[in-house]
């Protein structure tokens, strides 16, 4: 699998290259701005693009706009965006079409190399990787809701679900058995009136739909 990296800080880009290679990708190109990124995508047709949101020339949301354009021209390229801060509307925009092969993480998550590599692979394989902060920020927007009926544990599980993790992944993270996770999920889906779904990313979609994203 081949990847393209767009990150304007040279220091960080060097590290990202190492981590992406460690995850088993071949780095086809590394660029420092959105324009070069689009050119590199045209040229290499990578499986994954790792994109910084804030890049030259304006240092605002160049990465998001580039990602949307890649989505329409190269739908098969998985996109993982890195950002200094979480803006839930970026997530809304990115996930509006579909949730497969999309990730949106805080930049500092790269420090946890193993988890980051897992997220890279998940996104490249058509899964989802949303920062827990995205879900947290979406939750504060909810008016009085059935969300209040969830237990603390169920909230945790919900957040991990929205991040795009599988039952096994959630179980490992919370150090519980998979059957316990399944029970929590059933309870959550029931409380929130969500349709049951099997595929991880369909589940993410359901959760996000509930939270008001891409509705």
């Amino acid at each position, binding site marked *: 699998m081949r990847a393209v990296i767009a990150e304007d800080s040279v*220091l960080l880009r*060097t590290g990202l290259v190492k981590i992406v290679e460690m995850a088993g990708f071949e780095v086809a190109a590394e660029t420092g701005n959105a324009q070069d990124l689009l050119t590199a995508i045209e040229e290499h047709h990578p499986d994954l693009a790792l994109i910084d949101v804030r890049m030259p020339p304006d240092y605002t949301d160049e990465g998001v706009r580039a990602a949307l354009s890649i989505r329409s021209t190269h739908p098969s390229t998985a996109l993982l965006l890195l950002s*200094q*801060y979480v803006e839930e509307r970026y997530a809304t925009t990115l996930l509006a079409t579909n949730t497969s092969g999309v990730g949106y993480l805080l930049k500092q998550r790269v420090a946890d*190399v193993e988890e980051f590599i897992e997220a890279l692979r998940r996104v490249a394989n058509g899964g989802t990787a949303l920062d827990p902060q995205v879900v947290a920020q979406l939750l504060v927007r*909810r008016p009085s809701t059935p969300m209040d009926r969830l237990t603390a544990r169920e909230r945790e599980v919900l957040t991990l679900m929205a991040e795009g993790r599988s039952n096994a992944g959630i179980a490992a993270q919370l150090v519980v058995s998979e059957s316990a996770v399944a029970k929590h999920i059933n309870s959550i889906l029931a409380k929130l009136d969500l349709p049951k779904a099997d595929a991880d990313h369909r589940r993410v979609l359901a959760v996000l739909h509930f939270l008001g994203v891409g509705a």
Partner: protein
Amino acid sequence: MKILPRLRRALTRFPRDTAFLALGAPLHLLTGFLLFVIFGSIWAIIDGGEASAPVILGFLVALTALCVPALTAAQRWRFRQLLGVRIPRPSWRHPWRQLGYHSMTGALFGTLETLVVALLLAGVAAALSPLWIYALPWQWRVEHLAGSTQAIYFASAALAVLAAVPSLTAALVRLECRTSPTLLGPSRAEALARQVEDLTESRAGAVNAADAERRRIERDLHDGAQQRLVSLALNLGLAKATLTDLTPEAREVINTAHREAKEAIEELNNLVRGLHPAVLDERGLDAALSGLAARAPLPVRLKVDLPQRLPPQIEAVAYFVVSEALTNIAKHARDATKADATVIQLADILRLVITDDGLGGAAPGKGSGLTGLAQRVRSVDGTFRLSSPAGGPTTMTVELPCAQ
């Protein structure tokens, strides 16, 4: 011995006061003369009804209009240079007070100043008479002064007069100081209006400068330290993942370094969030607040209703208010389990309401950070209200003016 310092003060002031009066005398007399001529001519023309009258009349009025500001400027200069009394520049739109000053006090002060200065000169001349009397032709001296012994009485009387002169000059200077600045300067309402304008402007400048400084610090931290720390943590993470054949001690060292680097990133992020986060400038108040609410240690329900972006300084203050309020609730509100933050815009007012379900009893000035919050709200003419009855709930209401 109280008299000594007063005497000393009178004596040190005396030369300047004298110069002030000596300069004032010709200026006031000239003023009186000029205005007398102008008004006299105007009156003569109105009385005479000649054909060329309107032209000359117009010329004289123009001359007055030119003279008044020039005379005012000269007087203001005299006060500033010799007494250190600063009279603000009066407005061009209201020349009547100045005209009044020049026409009323011109003659009066001119006369008084001349008298005082003349008294001083005459006193000095008389006091020195025993010295110069011998320069006079002796016949004249004998004829008019009945011998030079007269000069001694003359000089003694002059010294008595001179002793009174400093008090006289001081009194006249005081009188001028009391009357002139009020008539020559702007009226009280004008001066206050100008001061308010100045203060408003300088305060807005200070608020903006502080905002710009916070932004600059944020940008510097983001471009420098934050990137480096993330890179450092990433490399330590890589080391942790790749160096598998290390001794347990070395592994522990790397683990610790990795953890500390991540904590440093978190601390730096918190610092930037408290200052002026990038998301505020780039995405606005709504986006910045949801990040804030999501990170609060207790559940926060956020409701933001803003039709458009607000002026940057208002966004910054509003962000600071919510940030401080939530920090405050987390730190001080006893038994608070959740908080609500509502931000709505009503015409030109931005209203922020932050509520918690704690036990109440919050008050500014208990090291709570509420004082700083209230100050920052006042810096943009906002209002701050806090209701925190014992037993709760606590509601903070802040209103900020947000006209575009």
